[in-house]
Every structure is written in C-alpha cells, then in structure tokens.
C-alpha cells in the first residue's frame, strides 16, 4: 500500500479510505487503485477521510473524477469528509462537488451514502 493511504476499512458496505499527504498524481493513483480493485469485488460505495491531506492539485482532482466516472457505470457513489478549507475550495472550483458529496463527519457520511 502507498504511504499516501493511511488505512482502509469497511462500514455498512462502504469502503472508507484514510489518506495522508499530497493528493497529486501519485496520491490519486493510490486511491484509484484501491477503488478499482473494490469495484471489481462488487463494492460501489466509497468514502475518503481526508484529515491528513492538506494539499491537492488538479491532477489529483482529475483522478478523483475518473473514479466518479467509473462509479457512475456501476451506480456507485463516492464522498469525502474532514476536508481542509483549501481542499474543499479546490474541489468546489474544479466542479467535483457537483458529482460527489462532501460531508462534515464520518457518521454523517456513512448515514447518507
């Protein structure tokens, strides 16, 4: 597992991925690798705990968009929580929030997804 992925767990058939560090090309690919593997295994709901990610670039965002596109093919969903303000702002500018949801807490995310 990449050092960017701090942990993965499952709750209510949702895969929860905790990240740590720069969400760039490398970070994004680490997330997508897990997501694609889980999608293949039949899981369609993903939550990303971004408490440890304070920086994101447009490449990282574009990889998240690729994951969203993949999930749309299987009626899946992805959401994020514990976002730093600058990360939330970037997600918003890049249009990510139109096709996925940002939650405040894990409880809220698990309940809603």
């Amino acid at each position, binding site marked *: 597992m990449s050092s960017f992925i701090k942990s993965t767990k499952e709750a209510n058939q949702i895969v929860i991925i905790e990240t740590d560090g720069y969400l*760039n090309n490398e970070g994004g690919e680490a997330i997508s690798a897990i997501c694609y593997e889980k999608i293949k295994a039949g899981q369609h709901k993903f939550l990303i705990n971004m408490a440890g990610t304070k920086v994101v670039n*447009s490449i990282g965002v574009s990889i998240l968009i690729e994951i*969203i*596109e993949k999930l749309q093919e299987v009626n899946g969903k992805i959401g994020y929580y514990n976002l730093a303000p600058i990360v939330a702002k970037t997600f918003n500018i890049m249009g990510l929030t139109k096709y996925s949801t940002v939650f405040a807490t894990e409880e809220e995310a698990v309940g809603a997804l």
Partner: protein
Amino acid sequence: MNKQFNINELQLKYLELETLLDITNELNSFENVSVLLQEILIKSCAVLNASSGLILMQNNNSDLFQIEAEFNIDVEALKGIIFNKKKGFFNEVNQNRKPLNIQIANDNFLARTNCTYGLIAPLLDKKDLVGVIVLFDKESRAGISPFDDSDTNMLSAIASQAGVAYNNIKLMENIKEAKTFNDNIMQSIVTGVFTTNLMGEISHVNRAAAAIINLEREMVIGNHYDYVFESNEIINQLISKCEEVLATISETQIQIDCNGKSTSVNISVSPLLNDLNEPIGSVVAMEDLSNLDKLKSTFKKYVSKQIVDQLLENEEMLNLGGQEQEATILFSDIRGFTSMSETMSPTDVVETLNDYFNLMIEIIFKYNGTLDKIIGDALMVIYGAPNSTDKDTENAVLTAIEMQEKLIEFNQLRIINSKLPITIGIGINRGKVISGNIGSRQQMNFTVIGDSVNLASRLCSVAASDEIIVSDAVWKQVKDNKLFKGKKLSPVKVKGKVKPIQIKEILYHRPAFHYEQAFEKIEAFLITHLPTKYTYHTIHHIRDVVEQAEKIAKKEKMSKAECPKQK
C-alpha cells in the same frame, strides 16, 4: 469519458486566480517567516501541479542559501548540498532576477531530488535576491513534464507577493527585536525610567522605576503623572517645567515619598521628541540614592565624611601609590589600659573600648580627621591628607582638647556606674609624610608614613595621663590662636632623633570633678563590699581627719617636704 467531467482551462485559471488571491489575502496575516514560506510553497505546488518544492533563503552572513520550507521532498537526500546563490542555476536567477525553467541533468546537485524538471523563481528584497522558490516536476496524467510559460508567470506573481510579505514580516521582526532589545536594556538598567505621553499619561515604566516608587508597573502605566506622584509635588513640578521649557531639568538628592517609603533620589526630566523634533512626552530618570546613602553611612564609620565624598567623586583616589605632603598626625593612647584590663572580664574590656572609641571617633570626624587606624587602645588620626586645609593643625589640637574634656564626663559616668575611669595621653606632630593607598588591589588602606608620623607616636608616649603634647611645628601653627594655651616643657629625647625635641603641653579647661556624686558611689561600694573585719569611716569623716591633720601641721609649721605627697 463524459465531457461534463473534464477539467477545463477556465477552471484551472479560476483556481490559479483564487490561489493568488488567497496568497495575497493571507500574506499579511502571517507573523512568522517559516509559516509564511511553507504556506506559499504548498499553494505554489498545488496550483502549478508541481510534485514537490523547496524554498531556499539566504543565510544572513553569507551568499549561501538554506532550506526554509520543503514540500513532498526527501530533504535527507539534500543534506550536504551547498546552495550557493552565485553558482549554477541560482547565479542565473540572481543575475536576471527572473524565473528560470530548468531540466536537471544527472550530474547537477539537484539530481539528488530525483526530479527531472524545475522552475526557480526569485524572492527579492527590493532588488536583492534573498531567496528562491524551486518547484519540481510538473505533473500530468501522462507523467511529468517541464513547466511552461504560464507556470513561469504564475510563479513569478506568487514570488513577487511572497517577497513583499517576507520583507514585511522581516521588518516587523526587526521592529519587535529592536523593541525587545530596548525593553531589555530599560529593564536591566538600575536607573528608574518613566516616559509620559503628550497627555501626561505614563506610557512606560522600567523595573527599577517601579521599585523606586514602590508601586506595581500595572498601577502606574496609563495614569497621569499628577495622580501617580500626587504626594511628590516636586516631581510633578519638574515634569511640568520640562514640558514648558522643552529642556532637561534636574534635581539632586531630593527626598520623595514612595507609597509610604521615603527614598532619596536624583531626578532628571528630559523632553521626549519624535523624528521631527516635536515633543511627544517626557522621560523621567530617577537614581535611587538609598544604597549610596547606606554605603556612605557604612563607610563613614571608618573615614570622615570628607574622605567618603572625595572617594565617591574621584575614583582615582583609590589608585595605589603615594605623594609627599604636609600633614598633622595625632596619636592617643589609654594609660595603663593593659594592666587595667587584666582586672576586667573580656566582655567589659570590649565594652569599655567600644564606648570609648565611639565617643572619640565622633570628635575626630567632627574636626574632619581621618581615622587611620585603631591599634589596640591607641588611635592614629590624620589631618590634611589626602586633601589639606589651613585648619588641619588647629583641627587636630581642637580634637585633642575635646577628647580630653569629653573623657572627664565619660569617666564621671563610669565612676557612677562603679567602673574604673580611664585616662589618655595625646601626642601631635606636623611635618612631611608620604600619603597614599598602601596595600594590595584586594585590600588597601589610605595611610601616611614617615618620620613625622613616628614622632607623633613618640610624643604620645611622652604625654602623661590627661596631657596633650605637641611638637614645635604644631605649636608654631596654632600659637596665634587665642583658643590655645601652651606650656613650654623641657626638650625630650626620643628614639630615632639625635637632638632633643622641643615640645609644648596644650592646656585646656578641666571641668570640676563632681566629687559628691563619686563619694556617694564609693561609700555605697565600700559599705557593700568592705569585709566586716574592717571599720569603714565615711568620706566626710576621712576628709575631716585630713583637714584637721593639715591644720595641726600648719600650726606646727611643717615644711612641704615633710608633708606626705598627694596624688
């Protein structure tokens, strides 16, 4: 891929603008250079899709850069690299003051970052290069690529903003440092310092000032000086006067009431001026004299006030060395004190000497003598050294007379208290002496040495109980003063002198002895202590017997030689 999900150029430009705006908005909110640089680096990397980055800042003392911020890079791998602003890529940036797009060759020192491309932007302090932002490897979904012109312009804009912010923070840090430096100086100096503003409110108080006025700083700051010094009108007057005349006003040795504690201070009030030389308040400096007073008071137990003041005013007096000058030397000695002390307890000996010395030294200082030394029960006193006056010898003789006169009163009290009286002989000489501080740097004594000193000591030995013996040199200086009466004595031979020395006895008024009081005490003592086998006749009876015996002797026409000698 669904087109609606593509990140378009507009969104990226929007992100760049937002990032630049964020940086601009946040720049002035940072108070710490390290935090500012780290934030700028992270935002630069994010907005330009750089995989990692560094900010290098110039070391204050050299042309070398050091890493001040790093992002997503293995700094351990960079340890030992010398980032010289006058070499390689950095030199190019330094020369052109423009961003530089680079490809990192395998043999370049930056190859240790494992990166292929770099973008270096200058951080400028006015026109000086003070640091660089270095971004590595522009990311894309296809892999890494060089930075383009758009990236260069963006980083240039960020670096320009960062340079301004960096300079502002540095300026603030310098101001804070200067303020802390000034505050530390103010707090560490022993002179009390207050400042007042144009409104007359106290704006600054250092620790020493708070201690002098015996008030907490918090109770003083912000209050008008009229209120703070309401019980010290003199201070308020000085500040008002300074505000009026815009010149320094001083007062020395004034007594002020400091929250119930009286303190002696020197005060100086000066106008506080701004850059344009306009008054913006006053500075009050207070020098606490209480320690100096304590020092003086302690010092004065050993030397006269005159010497203390001279030493405090002129430290050079403390230099070792000597000078030849005229001085008058007085020696006094208690007669028979050794044998007398054998009959006394050690406590009584010390008590007797202390009482005696207290009385004598007070007289010595009254006449500006310097107590040179106490040798057992003897005193050596100097007049005219280090500074002489035309009254030195007169003062020495006046001292001697008053010593003898006061000793009579002293003895009356001792007799009344059933203690043995003491008598002294005094010798005074005047002549050339070598005066100076003699000893070591650790311990030195101001003293005089020479033949004249020795002769004064010899004259003291010649003097009988209650006598004041002076040399011819002394008599010549005081004979015209009607206060003094001299009685010529036979020349004496003294040790160390070939020819006999001409001497005079100074006569003085000896107050009548209060016999009645003494008799009462003696009688009481005898009644209590006389063994029962002896019969005690009263003093009156003894006197009657003696008077009758005298009458009988006169009637029988006895010669004086036949009469028993009376002491």
